[in-house]
């Protein structure tokens, strides 16, 4: 298993996540896709850390940070989606275009 395989895998996951973000209507599902993208990044980082001959563990360090920050981000996002649900009665992203132009 060379570095390239991991890179391709993470790129694939990233693109799936990206598609999910653009195509999905419900905010929660969008959040899931974002998580997907972030995990793809983690995979990439860890793979670089392992395969590269640098010997330092910067890749893993960054991955750990990313995981923590991603968690905080999702928590925050869900709270805000909750407020949207309470004020708008639904989380369909296509309906929230009151502001435009």
């Amino acid at each position, binding site marked *: 298993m060379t570095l390239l395989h991991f890179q391709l895998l993470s790129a694939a996951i990233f693109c799936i996540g*990206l598609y999910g973000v*653009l195509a999905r209507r419900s905010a929660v599902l969008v959040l899931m896709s974002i998580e997907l993208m972030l995990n793809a990044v983690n995979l990439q980082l860890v793979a670089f850390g392992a395969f590269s001959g640098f010997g330092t563990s910067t890749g893993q360090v960054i991955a750990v940070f990313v995981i923590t920050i991603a968690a905080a981000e999702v928590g925050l996002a869900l709270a805000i989606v909750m407020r949207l649900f309470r004020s708008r009665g639904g989380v369909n*992203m*296509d309906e*929230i*275009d009151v502001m*435009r*132009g």
Partner: protein
Amino acid sequence: MEQAWLIPVFGFGAFAFLALFRKYLPGQGKHLAVLAIIAAFVAVWPVLFDMLDKGVGEHHFPRDWFSAGPLEVGWGIIVDPLTVAMLALITFVSVIVQVYSLGYMRHNGTDDSRIGWYFAVHSLFSASMLMLVLADNLLLLYVAWELVGLCSYLLIGFWFERRSAAEAAKKAFVTTRIGDVGLLIGVVLLIVEFGTVDIIEIMGSLGDPGVNQAVVTASAFLVFFGAMGKSAQFPLHVWLPDAMEGPTPVSALIHAATMVTAGVFLVARLFPLFDATDSAQMAIASIGLVTALMGAAMALVMTDLKRILAYSTMSHLGFMMLALGAGGYTAAIFHLLMHGIAKAMLFLSAGSIMHAAHEETDIRKMGGLRKRMPITSAAFTIGALALAGIPPLNAFWSKDEILLAVADGLNPVFVVLFLIAIVLSALYMGRAVLVVFFGKLKPENLDIHESPRIMAWPLALLAGLAVVTGFIALPIGYEGIGTFLVAPGDKPHAFEVVPIWLVASVVLALGGLALAYLLYGKEDTSRVDALRERFARAHDIVANRFYMDHAYQWTIDRVVLKVSGLLARFDRKVVNDVGVNGPGLGAVEAGRRLRYHVTGLFADYGLGIVVGVAVLGALLWFGV
């Protein structure tokens, strides 16, 4: 002679003083103006005598005024026979007219409400005319030339409440201004070509090798175009008849003796320029002749007394231009002086008739006035006969001189036409005298009485002069006018009489008068009416001033105003609405389109980011 520049200063001073303080002066300062012009008149004589003993010729006293770049412009003076002659004429006629105006402008005891302004502009006019005559450089000459135009505008439009007066003033100013365009271009061409504004220097170096002759010819024609405007030559003569709207003394001064002769004076002052170019001389002569004939024809059919005199002036100016065209410098200037005196007297007498007959100018309503107004009718008759060319009156000598000049200067066709013109001028003068003064006194004119002394005396004085001044042509005391009035660079020629032309001109003049008596002497106008039917169409053309006025008016209404209207609309619609508002509205429209793309949907915003990354990645990847 050195202080000759003081002469115009009297007038300018009077104008400034009156213009500012006329409300606080007794009689609005009219006496002050008259005093100023008398002082000017008195000052002319020492200059004359000083020149006589210092030797007749050109005395130039330069004085610098301002300089711009390489150009030095001064306001010096030239004193030569031509100047002195003109100075004498202008100051003399101005004095006469101003004294006459004192009476003319008083209607039943009270002065005209703006008499102060009248006299102020009068002194400004005579001052500018004097400056014109004295000017030693082209720019100063043009300055005076324009000031004279302004004064004629102000004086013609003196009674500006009357619509016709305001229009006439505007027409006069605009027509002369069109002439001035030619003059200015000519003057600037000369200044640029010779690098100096000084007349004497330019006239001296006309023949120099380095000079581009095409420019000299062009400037000759253009300067003459300017002279045509001011001296009411064909085709720029249309303003002169309308200028009669102004007060009659104004017409006497401006449209008889001084302003209209400015054109002739200009051609005389720049005579070497015209002498050097034959084509220009031919043009001057032919236009002069055409103007003379047209003027005479129109004077024949006019019914308004002042219009008759106006056309007569136009005709005589034609004679002067013809003389200059033929190279007869002395003859032209001599006729200018003689005509000035005679025509001023005619206008003043017309004025006194109008003054007496409650502003009536239609000669058909007048008749047999000689019984009521002896002095005026005598003066008018003398003037008319003089201009008709009856010896020994003054205009006869000058017309004779012109005949001599034309005879040896131009081809026979000009001479024949000139003779016809002599007959015509005698004819219309005779008609005027007969219809106005002889025949039966009409009932409504019964209460007419002679004008007050202040108006009658100037008439008498002028009449006397009309008789006497002719003799200065004769070689008594010096070898004749030819030696005094000499074109620069020309040799003086003594007075000589060529019997054949002398007799011819007298016979034709008397013939003209006889014809006039025949047609208009008797009461019955049957013969005249018969003539009028036969040449009905010709009569209408001439009566309508050859439809010149209508043509000009048509061009102005259809062409000039239409074009300017179109241009203004083009300016607003195209240059402004399209050229300026266009980009503005375009920007706003672009903004509206851009705004349309911001849909408010989250998905589109996300797409924006993705596309952005893709584009940026591509740009970086392919190493733009």
